[in-house]
């Protein structure tokens, strides 16, 4: 009888310990999440930011669809609809997923944790641990590290470019999140969060912040200098279709006057073996002699002629109308300078 009682007391003690030290409160285990839409109820502001971001459009963006042949080129799927980074491994290359591709780089791609060894859902990663929230976020500091972005964004060496820049090595360090996930409502503890709009090359203000364009006369001819002052990586970076081109034309009242192409800033596609890589490194200043033809060819333009110089950015390298860059769809004038004698 004493033995039975002993076993009973021991079981009671184990039960007590489990209840005391085990998962908190109602102790409902983390559930499996299938879609970003499920995050919307609690995180409506962040969800709305993400919906406007390029991450949410990485599968549906018409430019991507056109370039990939509606993803008939399956090589693009890896990064445009990735499996969760925590599952494939931080700083490891991502793998393509099968479900919800329409959501592109979705909430789960960054926040879903791997299942536990027993197969139960692993929950989600967040900035803080919160056992009360329905999604039971675990605090995972990896989320804020550049390595976290590297699986996709180092495919074109953007993270390596950052590592080699003053932004990573200088005194005032700035990383991916400082520019691309800035704080929203930083003063309000209740609503403060990192922006999930991921501003980048799609935001004109980011482009303008990255580049300066200046000019001067020297020895009777004009020179323009384009400098990467604000990007902690090359400009442009990432997708090879992104292009920045410098143009000039005589200063006039005629807004429709044709421009002359001066210089292209771009990393070539892999089959463009004869095209040089001219990306502007972080902090690099590149001086360009203003000449009658592209890339320094032709004759130098006299500094007696008043001219204007402009830098246009596009997400496709093919100009339909090179003489009127602003007329090409999606072209953004990032910087412009007037040079007068």
């Amino acid at each position, binding site marked *: 009888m004493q033995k039975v009682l002993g076993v009973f007391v021991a079981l009671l003690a184990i039960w007590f310990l489990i*209840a*005391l030290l085990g998962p908190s409160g109602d102790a409902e285990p983390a559930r499996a999440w299938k879609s970003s839409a499920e995050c919307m109820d609690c995180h409506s502001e962040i969800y709305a930011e993400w919906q406007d971001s390029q991450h949410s459009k990485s599968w549906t963006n*018409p430019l991507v*669809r056109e370039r990939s042949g*509606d993803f008939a080129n399956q090589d693009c799927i890896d990064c445009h609809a990735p499996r969760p980074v925590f599952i494939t491994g931080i700083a490891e290359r991502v793998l393509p*997923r*099968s*479900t919800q591709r329409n959501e592109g780089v979705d909430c789960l791609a960054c926040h879903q944790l791997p299942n536990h060894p027993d197969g139960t859902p692993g929950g989600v990663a967040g900035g803080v641990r919160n*056992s009360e929230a329905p999604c039971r976020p675990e605090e995972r500091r990896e989320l804020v590290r550049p390595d976290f972005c590297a699986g996709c964004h180092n495919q074109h060496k953007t993270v390596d470019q950052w590592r080699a820049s003053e932004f990573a090595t200088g005194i005032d360090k700035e990383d991916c999140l400082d520019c691309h996930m800035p704080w929203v409502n930083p003063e309000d503890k209740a609503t403060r969060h990192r922006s999930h709009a991921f501003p980048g090359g799609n935001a004109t203000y980011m482009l303008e912040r990255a580049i300066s364009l200046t000019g001067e006369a020297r020895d009777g001819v004009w020179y323009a200098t384009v400098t990467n002052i604000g990007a902690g990586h090359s400009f442009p970076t990432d997708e090879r279709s992104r292009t920045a081109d410098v143009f000039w034309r005589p200063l006039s009242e005629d807004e429709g006057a044709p421009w002359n192409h001066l210089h292209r800033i771009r990393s070539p596609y892999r089959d463009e073996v004869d095209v040089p890589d001219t990306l502007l490194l972080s902090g690099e200043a590149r001086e360009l002699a203003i000449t009658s033809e592209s890339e320094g060819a032709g004759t130098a333009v006299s500094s007696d002629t008043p001219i204007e110089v402009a830098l246009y950015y596009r997400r496709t390298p093919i100009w339909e109308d090179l003489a009127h860059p602003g007329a090409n769809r*999606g072209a953004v004038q990032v910087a412009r300078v007037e040079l007068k004698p």
Partner: protein
Amino acid sequence: MNHSVFTLAPVMGLVAMASCGANETPAPTAMPFATRSIVAPALERLDKTIGEPTPIPAPTEELRDLADNLIVFLNTAGPGMSDAAFDDAKAQGDSLLPVFAGILSGTSNTDDEKRAAARLLAGVGTPAAAQYLLGQLESNRDEGIRAICAWKIGDMGFDFVIPSLVKRLKYEKARSVTPWLALSLSKLDNFAGVAYLITVANLDGTDSDAAAQLQGIAIEAGFSDGYALNSVWLAGDLDNKLPQSPRSQRYEREVWRLIDHLQDFQLRGVDDSRFVLSSLGKSAVPILGQALHDESSYVRSHVAQVLLRMGGRGQGAGGDLIAGLNDNILAPYAAEALGAIQFPSAESALLRSTGVGVDPGLRLAAVRGLKQLGLDSSAPALRELLAEPDFPELAQAAAEALVTCGYGDEVAGKLLSIASGAADSGLDPDTSLWALRWWVEDRSVRGDELAAQVTDEYDALAPIPGIPPTTQEDRQRRQARLALFSKALQNLLEGDG
């Protein structure tokens, strides 16, 4: 503190454990999927067997003079005499290779001299000479030289050059080179270049060299024309009509090296490997089947993608893919690949993988695999999935799969409804539109004039190639296509009678 000593968690846990799985469909099979290191040992074994290439000493002045003399002789001798130059080059062996390569990449020789050097380089006839030719194909900026290298390399008979030639197909832009790549590949019993040759022949016309080469390759392979040959290659040569030589260990090593690159971080190398491997013949398939069991999840998943792109030629790895349905990482890729390779006994395994309780990614991929198989017998199970309440994406995929299984009439209305409401449901409208496009084209092939008209009107709405549409244009095009189907659907279904 939020913990309660009165919690019933342990008891509930026991109850939950006891009842767990009562209503779940079992996983595809109970057999666990074992992985091990496969690629590295295979490469190690082959490296050991084949051995390192013998280093070629720096060329002497005497060798340079000999090379110059051979070039002069080849360029001046009559047709019957040129063999003597090739015999001399062959007799000297690999020692001449750096000399010829130097001439080809230098600036002091004439075009004629360089072309003669390229031919003599091939004439050396050793594996090292073939490697030098591959190097020129990669790097020489003179397309005339590249064309000679592409032409000559197929005559040397070394199958290990096949992967490199296939890769050149991807990157070579000169229309004067591509036909020779295709010809050399065909001499080595690889027909991946035929589709490229068809493209060039169509651009250059029926009287072109490319058209003549296409016809020559087809006849040599036992076909009436290039199109027939290409169809059999793309369909997987299920009846073994294409010539297939046994492959060497050097070839096998090249295949393993490509598989090894599937682990690279940079997708550039991975993409190249996926392209080349999926363009190889059936002889590569047993190797790919082995690689499906490698410990690297990148190797396993990308090899499955390679087999998917291979289509019917990949059938030899069907058994390994079915086993891969038990591997969490590999399973969805394996499921889609099983459909794409048209593996005869895949249907039952795929149907099991669509069951409730199976991982959602695998369920979806299995339905996509069934869509590729397009078997009438899959229809009942797919119909059941149409009503999946918590998994609309699966229901959508099932509807799309029913189209290829021959039941497009049954689900056309549902697909139109899905595509129309996709903005609210979070589903991809385009996949359903593509399924409807497939349906009308299939009907038009069977003589339905209205379906043919709808197909043409649908295609006429396509964006201009090379000019990416704006989001607004994209939306308008989708709306126009939806309107097209909405207007025609009733008549299409009634016309079916």
